[in-house]
């Protein structure tokens, strides 16, 4: 399969002198088309920093990150912004929606940049996506009038609007209850089925168990990884057992 994102020896450090601390320590990772990847590790292990580095939201100090062969390190801020808007989607722990826009407007927001005249087509697409994720009736609501799970779905719709090659999720279920979390994972699995690559950062083994490749991070390095067959419903327990065993093995 074709590589979408590739990171080689990514190094990112904070502080100077004696206080210097490497958050990412020569991490190398590739993500391929249609892959469903997760990154696990304790707090401070560098999971989120890796996600920010691979998506071009954060500059790295050393190493190389490429998106379909383009070196993100030499791209201008504007080019990175365009890349995020057209090729990537993001889902965060908090819904990160604009409070003064209704749910539909939040979903179409990034696509509307410079596309005012296509508003009808964009709105149509948003409504289809909302239908698909089951929040069609919330279009005109304020974000204060929806539940956390519904808002996260809206966030996913927003991420899908640009038909991205890859979706990055930073603890996308972290603020949700069990049932809502499960529904979001069903949704993400479905999106992955349709061919969009997904990279998730999570603490949660039930989330990781839905993915096909789980990387384990500790102290800024990827220390191990396991690959699982595609999840096709049913109990997650065997997959979770594999993951927890591996975590015990590497001591995280």
């Amino acid at each position: 399969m074709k590589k979408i994102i590739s990171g080689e020896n990514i190094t990112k450090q904070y502080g100077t002198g004696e206080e210097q601390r490497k958050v990412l320590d020569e991490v190398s990772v590739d993500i391929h088309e249609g892959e469903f990847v997760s990154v696990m590790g304790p707090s401070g292990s560098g999971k989120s920093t890796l996600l920010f580095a691979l998506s071009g939201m954060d500059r790295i100090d050393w190493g190389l990150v490429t998106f379909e062969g383009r070196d993100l390190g030499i791209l201008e801020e504007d080019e990175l912004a365009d890349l995020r808007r057209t090729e990537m989607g993001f889902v965060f722990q908090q819904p990160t929606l604009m409070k003064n826009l209704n749910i539909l407007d939040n979903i179409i927001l990034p696509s509307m940049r410079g596309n005012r005249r296509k508003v009808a087509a964009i709105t149509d697409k948003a409504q289809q996506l909302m239908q698909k994720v089951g929040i069609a009736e919330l279009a005109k609501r304020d974000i204060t009038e929806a539940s956390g799970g519904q808002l996260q779905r809206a966030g996913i719709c927003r991420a899908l609007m640009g038909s991205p090659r890859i979706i990055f999720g930073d603890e996308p279920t972290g603020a949700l209850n069990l049932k809502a979390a499960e529904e979001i994972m069903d949704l993400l699995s479905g999106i992955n089925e349709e061919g969009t690559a997904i990279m998730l950062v999570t603490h949660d083994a039930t989330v990781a168990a839905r993915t096909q490749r789980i990387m384990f991070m500790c102290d800024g390095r990827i220390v191990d990884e396991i690959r699982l067959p595609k999840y096709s419903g049913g109990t997650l327990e065997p997959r979770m057992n594999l993951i927890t065993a591996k975590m015990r093995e590497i001591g995280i």
Partner: protein
Amino acid sequence: MFYRIIRRDIRTSKGITLMTMLFVAAAAMLVSLSAILVVNLSGAIDHLMTQAKTPHFLQMHSGQLDQARLKAFAEQNNKVEDYQVLDFLNVEGARIVMDGHTLADSVQDNGFSTQSGKFDYLLDLDGNVIDVRGGEVYVPISYMKDGSVKAGGKVTVGDTSLTVAGFLRDSQMNSLLASSKRFLVSTEDYAELAQYGTTEYLIEFRLKDLSMLGAFETDYTAAGLEGNGPVITYPLFRVLNAISDGLMIAVILLASVLVVIIAFLCIRFTLMATIESDYREIGVMKAIGLRVSDLKKIYLAKYAAIAALGSILGLALSFSFRGLLLENIRLYMGESAHPALALACGILGVLLVFLVIVAYVNRVLKRFRKISAVEAIRFGTSQQTRTGSGRFTLSGNRLLNTNVYLGVKDVLSRKSLYATMLAVLVISSFLMIVPQNLYHTISSPSFITYMGIGDSDLRMDIQQTDHIAEKAADIARVMEQDVMIFRFAMLTTQALNVKLDNGVVERIKVELGDHSIFPVAYGEGHGPVAANEIALSAANAKELGKQAGDSLTLLVNGEAKELTVSGIYSDVTNGGKTAKATFTTTSDQAMWAVIYAELADSMLISSKVSEYAERFSYAKVSDIGEYVTQTFGSTISSVGKAAWAALAVMLVLNVLITLLFMRMLVAKDRYPIAVMKSMGFRNSDLTVQYYARSIFVLVTGMVLGTLLANTLGQILAGAVISSFGASSFKFVVHPLSAYLLCPLIMTGSVLIGAVIGTSGIGRIQISGNIKE
């Protein structure tokens, strides 16, 4: 942690901290200066009027004088302490030559006088009663100020040449607003000069008790004594002495209020930006049980230090500037009787500024208490409640670019946040437009019609001579034949008796002739057209209690004549108490005559002025433009300067406030900015959103400001104008400046502020602000 926050605060806001201190210094300086000036001015006026023994009641009079009758009145009236009649030799300006220059262009009535015996002394610059010797003259101080003549110079009238021995302070006529000026000469020289002018009388009274002034005025009028000329009373002398410096003090006070407000805004926005930037830290401190009041104390200490430094600097500056501003007061009125009081008031004023600022900082810092620890730790920024999404939706927006939409939307959803900036912009556009409009209005040619003067090219005054009506008719005949005179109007003024409803008879000056040729501006009604109509000046209408449409009984040719008041107009000439009518009388007792003329070619004004001045030596011929320049020129130019200064100050203020406000906003909006960036909005998109916010607020502010300027501003300007004597008034708006240039430069200034204020957007990291 406290230390770190304070250090960051000072590091990131060095410029703003300095600027805040300078504003405090400026405010302290202005407040201190105005306190010092007020005390000095009132002290100096009191001192001068006490030393000079200014009369309590002055009746100027020209014509016959019955000394015996006056004496009898003064002796019988129990309110009178002392009385005297002084001679004032009114000499045509053209005849007075000071160091080679005549006073022909002077709008003042210049004349000579001898030192008074009992009171109303003319003082030298040390405040002593002048004892003038033969061959010497003391010149009014205003001619020293404008550099017309120096001590040791010569004042020549006809064959008499006098040496300027010094300058005098005249507690009555010091002010340029007083229309006469007294030169002091010895009794012998006065007798010699008498042939060159006409004598007027200053009938002066000192009362036992000033509070009886009103009753005394009634007594004087009732006694039917000499009254051919204006009456001026002690309080009016005070006002005349105070007005020009008083206006300056008022302007300084206004400016200081403005500067204090700017200092407040600087402090408010800087503090709010700091609070927003350190929101999480402050929340953490609260959560772990640290006392936030300690942090509050540190901030309070910081601003108290800024305020104290600024105040001391301001006080020092006020001491170095006061000499400059007191110069005029010292020159015209001398030293104040209580200089220490002035100093104390200055210091008190500065202390007040200091306390007000500390109290304000304390109030803003109350926000610390409102910070929710949970919210701060969870989100890192304040979660201001917004008013929801409303009907103005992005999906329904076909008109605006998405970034512009987002900017406008933000303003609409956080109205209270933008209210401060809106208020600043409303006020600044108001303060830019009103002075501009005022300036355009008073400098427009039609403005003099508000002053009771017809809008013509030249004006001839015939007064203080005999056979006035005949002389005026002579001029009229010449003008009739003069092809260069497009049209003219001859108006003669007579003193006529008006019979009031209560039977009392009063004398008013009525200007007779055709008032439709060069009309003045009527605040109410219209000018007199029919023979049974009369128009009254605002001052007269008030005194007589008449309005347009009322009737009035005038005694003309010995018979009562019923007249209808056709209109009310403003007048600054002849004490403001005049009337206009078209009827004729059989009497030839004209007090004076005025001829207005408009030339076929206005280029010829100056040559016509000299031609007529030469031909009719008894008339004072003036170019109306020249007349206006001399009377109001300095005012017009000061208003013009003030208008430009206001413009400049407001522009700087706009830049500053927009800058601080945008900085605060960017600090507050770090989270949504990071979210937008993560979605793929470019820095330039975000910048445009912030520009759109500021422009949207600006446009709203400008529209409101302009509306206010044309309503409230016109009323306020009307109040200023009325101090010149005009009662009704409408702005002459210069559309190019008010509706194009002002908005354009305001937009420019706000954009500059927005560009600098939002420069931090690019530095906002997604990862640092969006991490869970």
